């Protein structure tokens, strides 16, 4: 993992000192809420329905046990004893008092964490594959590049007052777990014909009100030029992105209105005229950062584990959990252990302080002190020996984190919705809870297989409903909560946006309606066919009939 040196620490501390001054000016009335707003936003502080909300960055989703324990402490001391994991590998605290926030930030700085640029019209927390450094299908660990981007984008003098927020994601695997095609910039590390690795640069993807799949503007960018190329993109956007209409200010609108080809030319012109050597970090700095991400001292193990096989045979629940929640590791004898934060009935992504501590203990003991936060609001232990997996499972179960549903119907992504968010049209959490209970408790989840349900409380799409196999969007119909269903979305390498099926459904109707979609799939799928593939083959019309039920189709 990356460790701060004196310079990184100084920047974070000076930022806190600056913000402490700003908070004091706000509390004394020297700053109006209007003037304070952009300043607090750039430090991750929102004003929500009931209270302030503090969003803390978990850069590229990587945490140590010490950091997780500190988050638990903050949850206890300054919040109501829990935190909420977001779809952008951040953690949110929903109840801090303004006067405490500078102290919270100091406590975070003690463990090399911050809330810088987790909000505002600037470059946000860079996200990545939660399996980085562990995935069997990875070309190289993408996290050194994420850290390089984190440092470069922090307090960037030119790109801190952009037309709109800006999100960058990086992946290095064929199987895209970072959703790079639905980010403002997506970077995919891959190998070219000469065997060199470089970035495919994808620009202009995004969800929200106008969802779009990003366009590739460069197939292969030599890695060492990453930052100068990013600067060129950012400069074109900063100068030419729309600022007259907040709904048209994201880079996707610029790419779309200019056309990807003309946008690409503008970027290439800007880049070719720029002083690359002034911006690109020197090789020794890249190497310095890369060394922090050297693989941990893996043991040489047999690929199979007798202890694991025995435990599986003896404990059917464990066998199921391991089948569903464990993912292949690149090193023989190890697995990636996913921890579901979607216990059916609980709010998706919420984790209590005690649970944070339990997970921190496991990371320390069994996973080289590393933890990851996923963009599907779960956690994972990236490097667990198969021999240890049963112990890990039992500890998770004891902490109330034993749900075996990663990638299944009850692993639902949902934004905070009307329970917390003042922009919401409808509640998301209760719908997620009812759907999860329906699928988990009926015991049909395994049979349904890979199914991604994603729920947003409004068109801002924080729950990523556009890329759910089944998406649910809260809409307002004459002051009542209604839900619109989309079908066929996917965030991965086969990225697609869901299609709107038809009229909205009430909170009472929507759970059964989604149930009918799944029943229809089960009746019509071919051998081994996923929900998404069945939908792509069969088409919207027939799923639509299923959604609304025969009686209502005319």
């Amino acid at each position, binding site marked *: 993992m990356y460790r701060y*040196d004196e*310079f*990184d620490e*100084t*920047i974070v501390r*000076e*930022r806190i*000192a*600056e913000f402490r*001054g*700003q908070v004091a000016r706000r509390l004394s009335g020297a700053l109006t809420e209007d*003037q304070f707003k*952009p*300043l607090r936003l750039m430090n991750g502080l929102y004003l929500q329905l009931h209270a302030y909300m503090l969003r803390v960055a978990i850069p590229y989703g990587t945490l140590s046990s010490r950091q997780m324990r500190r988050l638990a402490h903050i949850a206890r001391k300054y919040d109501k004893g829990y935190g909420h994991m977001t779809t952008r590998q951040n953690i949110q605290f929903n109840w801090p008092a303004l006067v405490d926030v500078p102290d919270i930030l100091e406590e975070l700085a003690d463990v090399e964490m911050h809330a810088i640029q987790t909000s505002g*019209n600037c470059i946000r927390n860079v996200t990545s594959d939660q399996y980085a450094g562990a995935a069997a299908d990875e070309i190289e660990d993408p996290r050194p590049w994420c850290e390089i981007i984190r*440092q*470069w984008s*922090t*307090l*960037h*003098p*030119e*790109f*801190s*007052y*952009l037309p709109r927020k800006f999100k960058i994601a990086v992946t290095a695997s064929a199987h895209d777990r970072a959703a790079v095609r639905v980010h403002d910039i997506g970077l995919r590390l891959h190998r070219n014909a000469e065997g060199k690795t470089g970035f495919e640069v994808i620009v202009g993807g995004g969800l929200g009100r106008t969802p779009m799949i990003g366009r590739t503007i460069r197939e292969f960018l030599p890695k060492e030029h990453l930052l100068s190329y990013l600067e060129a993109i950012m*400069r074109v956007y*900063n*100068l030419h992105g729309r*600022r007259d209409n907040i709904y048209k200010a994201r880079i996707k609108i610029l790419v779309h209105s200019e056309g990807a080809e003309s946008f690409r030319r503008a970027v290439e012109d800007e880049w070719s*005229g*720029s*002083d690359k050597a*002034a*911006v690109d*970090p*020197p090789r*020794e*700095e890249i190497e*310095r950062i890369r060394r922090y991400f050297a693989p941990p001292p893996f043991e040489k193990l047999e690929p199979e584990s007798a202890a694991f096989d025995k435990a599986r045979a003896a404990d059917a629940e464990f066998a199921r959990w391991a089948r569903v929640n464990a993912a292949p590791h690149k090193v023989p004898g190890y697995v990636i252990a996913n921890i579901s934060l979607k216990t059916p009935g609980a709010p998706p992504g919420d984790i209590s302080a005690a649970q944070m501590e339990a997970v921190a203990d496991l990371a320390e003991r069994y996973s080289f002190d590393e933890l990851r936060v996923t963009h599907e609001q779960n956690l994972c232990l990236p490097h667990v020996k198969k021999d240890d997996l049963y112990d890990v499972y039992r500890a998770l179960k004891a902490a109330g984190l034993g749900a075996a549903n990663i990638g299944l119907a009850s692993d639902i992504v949902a934004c905070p919705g009307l329970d917390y968010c003042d922009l919401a049209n409808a509640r998301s959490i209760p719908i997620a809870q009812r759907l999860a209970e329906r699928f988990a408790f009926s015991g049909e989840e395994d049979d349904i297989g890979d199914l991604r349900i994603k729920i947003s409380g409004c068109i801002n799409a924080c729950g990523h409903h556009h890329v759910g196999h089944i998406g649910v969007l809260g809409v307002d119909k004459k002051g009542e909560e209604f839900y619109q269903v989309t079908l066929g979305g996917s965030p991965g390498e086969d990225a697609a946006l869901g299609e709107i099926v038809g009229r909205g459904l009430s909170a009472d109707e929507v759970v059964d309606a989604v149930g009918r979609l799944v029943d229809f799939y089960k009746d019509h799928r071919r051998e081994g066919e996923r929900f998404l593939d069945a939908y792509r083959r069969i088409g919207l019309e027939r799923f639509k009939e299923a959604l609304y039920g025969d009686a209502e189709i005319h």
Partner: protein
Amino acid sequence: MATLKFTDGELAPCREDRATEITLAEWREGARPEAGRFALALPNDAALDEVAHALARFDAIILHFPTFKDGRALSQARLLRARYGFAGEIRARGEVLPDQAFFMARAGFDAFEIDCEAIESFRTALSAFSCVYQRSSDDRAPVYARRAATRAAAA
């Protein structure tokens, strides 16, 4: 309203005679200053290419912040310094607040039109950070260069 200017690294009210300003529109209509001090006021959507060859005629370029949230002038200043080698004054006008001053100074601004009573908060803001991650128009070395220097000194 005063103009604060960096002179030898110190921020102080500007005492020189104010330059005569011309706008981009006047430039387009043929205004060609020859003597005295002149400043060109550029709108945020101006293509810098258009005035590049004439930059040497001007003592100052004035860039605009219609609201403090509008960061286009930051890119314009950066381009004026890095791409066009403009060495004269770059002055910030409009909604120029202390909380943005550090970024402005780093992007290439060395003069700020602000209320006189804001001088102290500008001074504080400009010295808020002793380390930076990026190379920009100022002469602050990015931390990677300082790291390399530390390593070299230790070796």
